[in-house]
């Protein structure tokens, strides 16, 4: 594998926009936590955390501009983790 000669270089602006987005999502998750939404509280908190992670992985960690193999790495590992969670909870609920 050779070092690609035309590497994608981001401007500072993209990172700052993403950072502002992350701060907005943080204030959103904090204010939503103050409202009592019963069983949806955890779901909403985790959805916001997932959106934040998506932003960090694609832009800050540069996955959007890297070789597609890295996307595969991440998808496979997240799916593995998901399967582990599902299997554990199946075991847990039928005890």
């Amino acid at each position, binding site marked *: 594998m050779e*070092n690609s000669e035309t590497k994608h270089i981001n401007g500072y602006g993209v990172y700052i926009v993403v950072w502002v987005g992350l*701060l907005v999502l943080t204030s959103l998750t904090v204010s939503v936590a103050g409202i009592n939404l019963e069983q949806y*509280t955890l779901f909403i908190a*985790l959805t916001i955390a997932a959106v934040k992670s998506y932003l960090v992985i694609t832009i800050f960690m540069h996955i959007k501009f890297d070789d597609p193999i*890295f996307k595969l*790495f*991440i998808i496979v*590992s997240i799916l593995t983790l998901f399967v582990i969670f599902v299997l554990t*909870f199946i075991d847990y609920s039928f005890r």
Partner: protein
Amino acid sequence: MTQNNAAEHNHDIHRDDVGSKMGMWLFLITELLLFGGLFLVYAVYRFTFPEQFSLAAMELNTTVGTLNTIILLTSSLTVALSIAALQKKNKFLSVIFLVLTEIFALEFMVNKYFEWSAKISHGIYPGSEELLNRSDGEILFFGLYYTMTGIHGLHVIIGMVLLFIMMILIIKNKITSDNLISLENSGLYWHLVDLIWIFLFPLFYLIN
């Protein structure tokens, strides 16, 4: 391929940037599984003791947690900016952004120190008499709190050391605009630390 004119003898040294990035990502995935296991333990016990988990979580300081989230997100930004600056051949700005990252990381750890000392001075730490008199769910919550934020804090310290070394290498021109894979990989590590915190924060500080 390398355009390193400072060191002539470097001309035909083989470099594989994509390969070393792959190695870094594989390592990050093992980190993900390490924390994934801890999150799994957390999930099972939270479903077993939902009321006791909320009761215990109320004792954590949401303000400090939110502040630390903002600090860590901002430090992620400065690392990304540091890499971008070096890619644009602005060595000075790149070092400045790394210094800022170190300051944010230190601030995070200082907040963590005060947070933990406040808890410990109230007698809440694993195995303490105060904690052992409480319900099982509360004992488990604080056990997980200390374990998970503790391992996360350890990663923050490792990341600080790593980024400090990168800073020295940039100053010494060992990392340059056409040879910055080690800086990029250290940046990836730092973003992972941020990612873990993105999940730790709502799960420990925002249960109502």
